[in-house]
């Protein structure tokens, strides 16, 4: 007999974050469908990333970070799941331990003492220097959102000029793997 589906805790009113992985057919309009679903129903998107992930580029993997009550997150997953090109929906936040990573490129324009300080901090945070001129650095950094936020905050007084972040991607730890 198939497992009995469990019910979300519908009385839980606390908001929680959810990192949702979605495998979809890589076809035109799919991103508009997903984004339209979120805007049309008033769900929150904290970040969204997407790229094809299989050999023949037929399947894309979308990672959405959102927040809501337990009931809202259940709704989001059910609404995603009934989109025709959606193959799998997985709430990484509750399916077990998972890794979440984000890539950031950050430009700092500074000279003199501030340059030394920026470099020192980059080293402590394991950010890589990927571009340098006499008056600037571009650092590359991966990690979870908090770490990137902390580094960005430290760069602000040192001449923070530009930040670009990819949004979060996530994957379950262990042998479990999400397949289309």
């Amino acid at each position, binding site marked *: 007999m198939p497992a009995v589906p469990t019910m979300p805790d519908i009385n839980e009113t606390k908001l929680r974050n959810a990192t949702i992985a979605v495998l979809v057919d890589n076809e035109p309009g799919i991103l508009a469908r997903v984004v*339209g679903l979120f805007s049309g129903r008033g769900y929150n998107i904290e970040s969204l990333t997407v790229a094809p992930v299989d050999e023949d580029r037929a399947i894309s993997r979308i990672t959405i970070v959102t927040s809501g009550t337990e009931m809202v997150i259940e709704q989001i997953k059910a609404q995603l799941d009934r989109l025709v090109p959606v193959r799998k929906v997985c709430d990484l936040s509750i399916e077990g331990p998972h890794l979440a990573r984000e890539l950031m490129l950050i430009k700092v324009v500074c000279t003199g003492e501030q340059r030394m300080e920026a470099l020192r901090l980059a080293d402590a945070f394991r950010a890589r220097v990927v571009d340098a001129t006499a008056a600037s650095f571009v650092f590359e950094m991966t990690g979870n959102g908090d770490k990137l936020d902390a580094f960005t905050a430290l760069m602000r007084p040192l001449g923070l000029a530009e930040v670009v972040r990819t949004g979060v991607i996530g994957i379950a730890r262990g042998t479990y793997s999400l397949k289309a």
Partner: protein
Amino acid sequence: MTPGEANSESQNLMSATLQTAASAAETMSGAEIVLRALKEQGVEVIFGYPGGAVLPLYDALFNQNAIRHILVRHEQAAVHAAEGYARSTGKVGCVLVTSGPGATNAVTGLLDALMDSVPLVCLTGQVPTHLIGNDAFQEADTTGITRPVTKHNYLVKDIKKLAGVVHEAFYVARSGRPGPVVIDLPKDILIGQGPYSEAPTAPHRSYRPQREPNAELVAQAVKLLKGAKRPIVYAGGGVVNAGPEASRLLTEFVRLTGFPCTNTLMGLGTYPSTDRQFVGMLGMHGTYEANLAMHGCDVMLNVGARFDDRVTGRLNAFAPTAKKIHVDIDQSSINKNVPVDIALVGDAGLTLKALLEAWKASEQPQHTGALAEWWTQIEEWRGKDCLRYRQEGSIIKPQHAIRRLYEITREGGRDTFITTEVGQHQMWAAQYFGFEKPNRWMTSGGLGTMGYGLPAAMGVQIANPDALVIDIAGEASILMNIQEMATLAQYRLPVKVFILNNEYMGMVRQWQELLHGGRYSESYSAALPDFVKLADSFHARGLRVTRPEDLDAGIREMLAHPGPVIMDCAVAKDENCFPMIPSGAAHNEMILGPDQEGGVKGVTDEGKVLV
């Protein structure tokens, strides 16, 4: 039918030109591919309106007889007609419109079908692929515009995928919770040559809605139901969509359990209205007994309804003491508005079957004593006779007009289909016209689209040529798609349009009376046409009745006339639709009509912001 049979049958029925094209080169034009796929999908009728971008399809239609094209007078009407066709038959309705304005005119109909879960496939023309994005003549971003109003949509850019897309569109439209699907067809795709492929037999790669309910949860539900002291069954449109067998199973289940049964607006007909266990429609204009039974029940079985706000009233006061069981094919309907205790995701018919079997297999006794007490309470509520009205004086009461229409059509014994427009007349139709079978009642529930009823009736009549089809209309709504009288004339469709003419947008007037201090801003139907002459000019029979003593004769004359009729029935202008649960109120805070005791409660400010 195996795919092979389907193929040979479609080949037989296809025209000679199509056959040669298919067998000689194994390729055919995009337009021919579309028609052949429609035929394979069982399409017999298509509602449409031509234009430049779809001329190749019209050309292909010209060369064949298998699919009948019904030329409407406005694209919105094409979609509503296809809805009427689909809802009265259970088949997928089919629409064909041109690019740009043709597609945008169809949008209201598509959303109507989405909200009411009606299976449709709508073909839209598009400018040729190389012009897409150039603001070409009659270009619209149709997939962009229709994305939020369809269940799914496609833009075909590769003719090799065309046949597969058409087959998939029909599968998506009818599977799971049904809905409208748009296929946008650039003109070069329709003209180009490509291969045909039959409908696939393999399961769809991603869209496979669950149809069978979880057996363990069914057992839990039966346990709860058997232990109920004040149960109620609340059945909606999902039961209609699951096919007539689901309504039969619902009736069997309700009779077996001895439970009371109520219907949503969309579910009317799934349980026989004349049965003693039927407590009437529930919700904003539902009966006293249905709403109070919902409010006071201890176990609620919702089959194929979605806890819509018209039904629940104020959410935090909705059925506060009930354990709730929700049967729905759409997982996203579960816990959307109302948290439930047991969710049975599956087809309404298959789930009812499983519930019946589990009920019969269970040895747990029912609380027969408590159930009898519950019925005593319900009968007391029913005794209030909340739909009572007094027909007196020289003016026809709208309730009386519907009641007489119902009684006289019943005497006639013809299979009768009712469509409606939107407003008070719609609610009176729901309250005073009884339905014994599903698929006989077509109304715009979710979207509330004025102008729905006449084109929907057209579609119903096309699908049921020998049946009696009546559009119960308001004088304001009927003008929203009145041009379809010409379609009735062209195809000799004997649809009867029964207008409750109160010279007001009555439902708007009612809200203004109850919520806005009687300031009747812009709700008077000024400068109305002479509906008798209007009917005449559209080659139909026009009748006008103003006195109660002429009502029956008028109805009989309308029904006896073999062609289309507009009956303009002048009714009381100031009548309100009761009972009413004002927005933001709970089921037990219902306003009753002037003929019943019970005071009118004020509407809260919170309620006023609600629609």
